[in-house]
């Protein structure tokens, strides 16, 4: 009996040290040396070197000259990168129907003719950094109008930044909102203030 207790205590403590401290620190060391950008959270910085977000994490965009991300249920008002969450509303929940309808109405007022499913639904994480190509194209006219450029130019930029599925079959085509918005700023008059 005492032998069992000794073995249990010693093995738990030994493996806690090896697997709970040694292993994560080793991966941290290798990761920080070999892949510092990824290990640090794929951060994006501005010209002044300040962190403006992560390319993997959605942040809110509401100005008309930018692509808008999907609605978010993370945190109390969305896009909380320290409180990831989906809405967890069931398919028949009246709150879901109400929310989706409201989002769709708003998009139609903004000029969308087709409503992509991802444009009116919250993601699993609330931090989905991507939107579907259809969702992005539906926003092209608004962006072009605000920035005073041709719609075709914005659509071309979106098409260039659409990531295809891996090997043609794994995953879905996607457009990264933050990166595409930075590309929009770089291509067409960066830093233009919001309309009106």
């Amino acid at each position, binding site marked *: 009996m005492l032998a069992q207790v000794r073995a249990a205590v010693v093995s738990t403590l030994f493996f806690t040290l090896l697997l709970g401290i040694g292993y994560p620190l080793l991966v*941290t060391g290798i990761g920080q040396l070999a892949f510092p950008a990824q290990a640090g959270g794929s951060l994006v910085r501005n010209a002044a070197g300040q962190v403006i977000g992560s390319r993997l994490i959605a942040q809110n965009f509401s100005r008309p000259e930018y692509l808008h991300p999907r609605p978010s249920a993370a945190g109390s008002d969305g896009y909380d990168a320290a409180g990831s969450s989906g809405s967890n509303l069931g398919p*028949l929940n009246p709150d879901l129907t109400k929310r989706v309808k409201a989002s769709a109405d708003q998009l139609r007022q903004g000029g969308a003719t087709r409503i992509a499913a991802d444009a009116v639904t919250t993601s699993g994480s609330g931090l989905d950094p991507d939107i579907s190509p259809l969702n992005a194209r539906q926003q092209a006219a608004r962006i072009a109008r605000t920035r005073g450029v041709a719609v075709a130019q914005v659509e071309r930029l979106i098409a260039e930044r659409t990531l295809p599925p891996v090997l043609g079959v794994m995953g879905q085509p996607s457009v990264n909102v933050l990166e595409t918005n930075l590309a929009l700023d770089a291509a067409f008059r960066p830093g233009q203030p919001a309309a009106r």
Partner: protein
Amino acid sequence: MNGAGWAEIVITIGVTLGLAWPLGAYLARVWQGQRTWLDPVLKPVERLVYGGCGVKADSSQGWSGYAASFLAFSAASFVVLYLILRFQDLLPLNPQGFAGLSPDLAFNTAVSFVTNTNWQSYVPEQVVSTFSQMAGLTSHNFLSAAAGIAIAAVMARAFAANRAEGLGNFWVDLTRICLYVLLPFSLVIAIAYVALGEPQSLLAHVKATTVEGAHQTLALYPTASQEAIKQFGTNGGGIFNANSAHPFENPNAWTNFIEIVSMNVLGYACVVAFGRIVLARREARALVVVMALFVFGASAAIYAAETQAAPALVAAHADTGVNMEGKEVRFGAPSTAVWTAATTGASDGGVNAMHDSFMPLGGGVALFMIQLGEILPGGVGSGLYGMVVIALIAVFVAGLMVGRTPEYLGKKVEAREIKYAMLAVLILPLAILGFTSAAAVLPAALKGLANPGAHGLSEILYAYSSATGNNGSAFAGLSANTPWWNTTLGIAMLLGRFAYVIPVLAIAGSLAAKPKLGATAGTFPTDGGLFVGLLIGVILVMGGLQFFPALALGPIVEHFQVLQTLAAR
């Protein structure tokens, strides 16, 4: 549904099966104490552990001794983990400044990670310190997986034995599985995850000022190292609340693919290793076929369900191609479907989309896969021994039909084994249906529900199925961080793990002591299509008969409500 989606599902399952064979061959060497190419590095470490534990590497335990070691180890890990979580505010590496967990939450979480369930009642990035994630949760991802795999090794030895007492030594199995299997593969996978974009940082938070001038706090952790063993050990407990839907845990289609493959491959490999040791490779292949058929069938069903028109999208006149609520754009329906089948079949419990927002039948299939007993292919180790228990029942049923004493893999299956097997499998309905019916009438429990109507019952049923099956996924709208849920789910997890393992070990002890018989003309073949069909039937009848009435009141009635809503438009 489209061709690319089907191709993704088939490729993912196919690659998993393809890798299971070499991994199973390697695993068999580790179980049998044979040399591996890692010996020069790891043999000294192995000896060090045995020395510290006072264990002789060549000693062998009977089933009750093995069970006592298993329980002693689980108890010690529970205590250590409970203390780490409860007092994380006094421990180092708490840059977030989090307080210690409440007693009921620390109990629930410690039970959850020690039983390989990894149910989480909390939002990790707002509750758990970096130290707790590493030393507490990451290490127990390894240890609970290794303990499960050890029981599978025992099952293999029991069938291979001829009138033997000894079933191996728990401490040796635990050590060798951790050192030779879980650690090296996790290390390689973790580094691949960092390369593919997962963070691996000891910093707690990075503050960002967004393009539009808002403030955003990005939570970071040593994510990749935990993600690797979370999936490879079928643990499934998220580093973040959104689990593998979170872009830091699962940034792209490549990581998603590796995470799905790694959460099933070791479960299948346990069956392959079992087949090699018992000298029953064809019989093991039949078990793998049954497992893979269920995973494919569930993937297909969820893919079909999630590409149905969702009522909210129909009402808003939006595109209805995919029910995108709770799903990530980079994954869409097929990646989500194959992941969900793999995670609920495997007792992993990690999710890459929110099951609570699935269409009723999509969520219903996930729930049903858990209720089938977590054997398809099941958790690492636990899938193998769970499947063997079902196989014993299947040959018993076949034996009843033809009036012969049933045999499985050269061992006579008699009343004693069947009694233990039934004792084990009856734990599932007892804990799942018992707790669900209690919770369905208790106001303290019902306060936690997020959705009204039939969906609310599904949330309760899913929670207890997930806990008892040691799965850990959730209809996550349920607010489970209350004393009622933390305590009862903790008890369900304990029952699902230990009340199952003890009879399984008793079966192993009983089988090992029997003579190994050769096959005769009267032996029921357990390697062909007939047995595959019989096994599928037994799995479905046991799951179906036990849980169908409850499912009818949850996902099935909700499905008809969806049809009614759509028809009314």
